[in-house]
C-alpha cells in the first residue's frame, strides 16, 4: 500500500527539473542525453559508470546477476528566460530503456539499450514587423522541432577474475528531427506559410570500458568511446556530415562505512570536433564538454538494502552548443532519489528528482526533472 502511495506521489510531483530538452539544445545537434537510469540520476549521475542499467560503461553489465529489463520515464518542468521573454514549459520523454543479463556458465553479460543521444524538442515563438508591399505588416513565427538523435547500444561485459571486468559496445546512432516553421501575418491578405522538413541522422560508434574492483569497498571505472560522425539527410537528401565526439570517462566508488556508498565521475567529450562542420553550415559551433558528478547512497536498513535508500548528488557540466558564439552554456544540478524493490526483488521502482540551473549570457533556465525508472527481473 505504501509503495503504491509512493508511486502515486512520484507521478504527481511537479518539478522544475532539467529535462533532456532545453533551450540550450536549440542550436547544433541538440541537448546531449545523459544515458543514465533513474537510480543513477538520483545520485547526480556519479554512479553512472558503475550502473548496469545506465548506458555509459559496457563493463558495468558484469554486475548483473540476472536478466534485467529497465524503463525510464522523464517529466520535466522548466522555466526559460531569454531576451525575448520568459515562459514555463514542460515535457515528457522516455530517455532510456534496456535489457541485459548474464549468460549461463560464462562470465559474460550481454545487453541491448536504447537511449537519448541528443534531444531537439522545442518550439520557439517570436513576433516581428516587416515591410511588405510598402506597408509594415506584423508577423508571428513559430519554429518547432521534435525528435533528436538516439543511441542503440549492443554491449557485452566479461569478468576477468574477481577484480576486473571489461566491456565493449557497438552503437548505432540514428533518429530524426521533424521541423516545422510557420509564419502568420496580421494582414490576412497573406496566407500563413508552413514549411516542414525531416532531418535524419545516421552514424555508428564503438566503446570500451573497464571496472577494477579493489576489495568490497573500492572500485574504479573508465570508459572510452568513439562515435565517428553523423551523416545528416534532409528529406532523404544528403546535406552534411558532422563529426561526433570521443568520450572519455573515469569514475571512482568508495564505501567508507557499510551503509554509505560514495561515487564520483568525470566525463569528457570532444564536441569541438564538430565545430568546423557546424560553422560551415551556419551554426554557432561546438565546444568540448566536461561533466563532473559527486553523489552518495545511504542505506537506512542494511537488512533490506533495496528498501528506500537515500540518494543524493550534485553535478556540474558544460554544454557543447553555444547559443551565442563564444558563450558556452553551463549547468549545475542537485539531485535526490530513492527506490523500492518488491516481489522478491524481481521488480523495482526508482525515483530521481533533479533541480538544474543552466545559463549562458542572457539566456538561462531552471528546471525540475522527475525521473521514474521501472526495473523488472523476470
Amino acid at each position, binding site marked *: 500500500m505504501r509503495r503504491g502511495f509512493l*508511486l502515486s506521489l512520484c507521478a504527481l510531483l511537479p518539478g522544475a527539473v532539467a529535462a533532456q*530538452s532545453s533551450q540550450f539544445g536549440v542550436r547544433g545537434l541538440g541537448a546531449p542525453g545523459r544515458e543514465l537510469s533513474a537510480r543513477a540520476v538520483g545520485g547526480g549521475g556519479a554512479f553512472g559508470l558503475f550502473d548496469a542499467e545506465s548506458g555509459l560503461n559496457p563493463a558495468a553489465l558484469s554486475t548483473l546477476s540476472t536478466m534485467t529489463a529497465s524503463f525510464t520515464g522523464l517529466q520535466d518542468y522548466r522555466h*526559460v528566460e531569454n531576451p525575448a*521573454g520568459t515562459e514555463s514549459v514542460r515535457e515528457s520523454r522516455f530517455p532510456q530503456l534496456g535489457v541485459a543479463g548474464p549468460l549461463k556458465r560464462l562470465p559474460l553479460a550481454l545487453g541491448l539499450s536504447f537511449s537519448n543521444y541528443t534531444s531537439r524538442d522545442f518550439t*520557439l515563438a517570436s513576433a516581428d514587423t516587416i515591410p511588405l508591399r510598402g506597408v509594415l505588416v506584423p508577423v508571428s513565427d513559430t519554429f518547432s522541432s521534435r525528435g533528436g538523435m538516439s543511441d542503440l547500444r549492443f554491449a557485452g561485459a566479461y569478468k576477468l577474475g574477481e577484480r576486473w571486468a571489461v566491456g565493449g559496445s557497438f552503437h548505432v546512432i540514428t533518429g530524426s528531427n521533424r*521541423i516545422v516553421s510557420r509564419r502568420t501575418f496580421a494582414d490576412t491578405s497573406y496566407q500563413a506559410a508552413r514549411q516542414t522538413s525531416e532531418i535524419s541522422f545516421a552514424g555508428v560508434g564503438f566503446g570500451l570500458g573497464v571496472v577494477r574492483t579493489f576489495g568490497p569497498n573500492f572500485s574504479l571505472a573508465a570508459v572510452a568511446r568513439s562515435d565517428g560522425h553523423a551523416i545528416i539527410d534532409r528529406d532523404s537528401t544528403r546535406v552534411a556530415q558532422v563529426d561526433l565526439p570521443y568520450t572519455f570517462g573515469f569514475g571512482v566508488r568508495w564505501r567508507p562505512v557499510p551503509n554509505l556508498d560514495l561515487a564520483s565521475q568525470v566525463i569528457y567529450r570532444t564536441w569541438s570536433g564538430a565545430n568546423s562542420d557546424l560553422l560551415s553550415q551556419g551554426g554557432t559551433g561546438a565546444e568540448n564538454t566536461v561533466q563532473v558528478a559527486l553523489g552518495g547512497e545511504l542505506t537506512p536498513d542494511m537488512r533490506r538494502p533495496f528498501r528506500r535508500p537515500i540518494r543524493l548528488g550534485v553535478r556540474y557540466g558544460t554544454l557543447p552548443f553555444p547559443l551565442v558564439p563564444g558563450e558556452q552554456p553551463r549547468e549545475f544540478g542537485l539531485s535526490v532519489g530513492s527506490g523500492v524493490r518488491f516481489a522478491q526483488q524481481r521488480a523495482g521502482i526508482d525515483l530521481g528528482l533533479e533541480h538544474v540551473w543552466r545559463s549562458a549570457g542572457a539566456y538561462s533556465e531552471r528546471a525540475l526533472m522527475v525521473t521514474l525508472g521501472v526495473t523488472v527481473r523476470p
Partner: protein
Amino acid sequence: MNRGARWAPWVAALAAGIVACQERLTSPGQCPELCPGGTPTVYDTVLGAVPGGDESVQGYIGRGAGAALLTSSGLPASEDRAIYRFASRLDSVSVRDTARAYSVDSVVLALNIVARDTLVTGLRVFLYRLPPDIEPDTATFAGVDPQLIAPALIDSITVPDSVHSGQVVTVLRGVDADRVAIPVGTGGVLAMGLRIAANAPTGIRVGSLAAGTAATFTTYVTVDVPDTTTAIVHQSLSRGAQLNGFVTQTPYLAAPGTLLIGGEPSSRAFIRFDLPARIKDSATVVRATLELLPAAPIPGLPNDPAVLEGRAVLSDLGPKSPLTTDPTLIVQDTLALGSTDTVRLDITRMVQLWQASDERPEEVALLLRPEAATFTRTLLGSTSPLSPVGAPRLHVTYLLSFPFESP
C-alpha cells in the same frame, strides 16, 4: 486488506502518471539569434506577363444570350434598345375538338427589371410594337431605333422610384388593347422594343430568356362558345418571349494594344505567365496578386457594378481553353466605374496550383459578370508595344525553402 484495496494505489499511480505526461514546449524565441536557420525571409517580386502571351477573344456569349438585356437613354456607357419577340398566339381556341374564335378582352405585358440606377428618378419604360418578323440576333440599332416612335407606341410603364428590381406590368383594355391586336392569319406573333426615359441619362437591365426572366405577353379572351361554363368562355392565353436581344448604338471595341473584357458578344482575356524556377520549384507563395491597368475609365451603369472574374485555365487550348469550376480557383473583384486605378485580383491559390502541377498552364482567364448582360466593359493594357498603359503583371510574395538543415 482486500484485493481491490491493494490495487487501488497502482491504478491511482497509473492515472496520475498519465495526467503528468503533458507537453507544453512553446517558449519565447530571440530570433534570428536563437533560431536555427534564422527567421523566414519574405520576398516580394513583380513578374510581367509573357510578351505576346495575352489576348482577348470575342464571341463567348451573344447579345440576348446573357442574363439580362440592356436598354438605356443617353447613358455614356452605351445606347441600347431591348427587343422581345413572343411566341405565336393562335387565332382560335380549341373547345371540344373544335376551333373557336375569340375576342380580346385585355392584354397584360409584364417586364422584369433586373437592375437600374437607383439614384435616378422618374424612370419610364416605353413599349413599342415592332414587326413580327424581327430577328433580335441580327437587328441593328440603326434598323430598330427609328421604329420606336409614337405611332408604334404600345404603352409606357412608370417605374416607382422605390422599385429597384422586380416585375412591372401594363394592362391594356378596350381600344388600348387594339395596339397589340394581331390580325387573324398573320401568324400571331407580337414583337416589341423598349426605350426608356428618366430625369437623367440612365439605363436599365431587363430579364432575358437565358435567365428565365424574359417579358411575358398574356391575353384575356372571351371564346365564342354558346351555353358553356364561364371557365371555358373566359380564358387567358399566355405567351413567353421566344426570341430576345438588344441592339447597341456604338459597340465597344478593343483599341489597339488593349485587352477587352465584357461587351457583347462577350469578350474574355487570357493572360499567360512564366514563373521563374526559384518560385515555381521551392517557394511558399503567401500572396499573389494579378495587377491590371485599365486603358480607359471603366464605363457602366452607376450603382449597378459588374464583377471582374479570374479563373484558372485547365488546359491551354487558346480561346477554347477549358476553365476551372473549382470555386477556390475562381476569384472576383467588383469594378469601380470611371476608375483608371489598377485592378487587382488575388490569385494566390491559382499560383499555388501552378506550382503543384506542371499540367496546369500558368494562365489566367478573365471575364466580366454578368457576361454580355452589363453596361460595364473594361479595356486593359496588354503586353503589346501599342498598349497605352502597362502590361498585366503578377505581384508575388513568397518565402523560399527554410534552411532547416542549418544547425
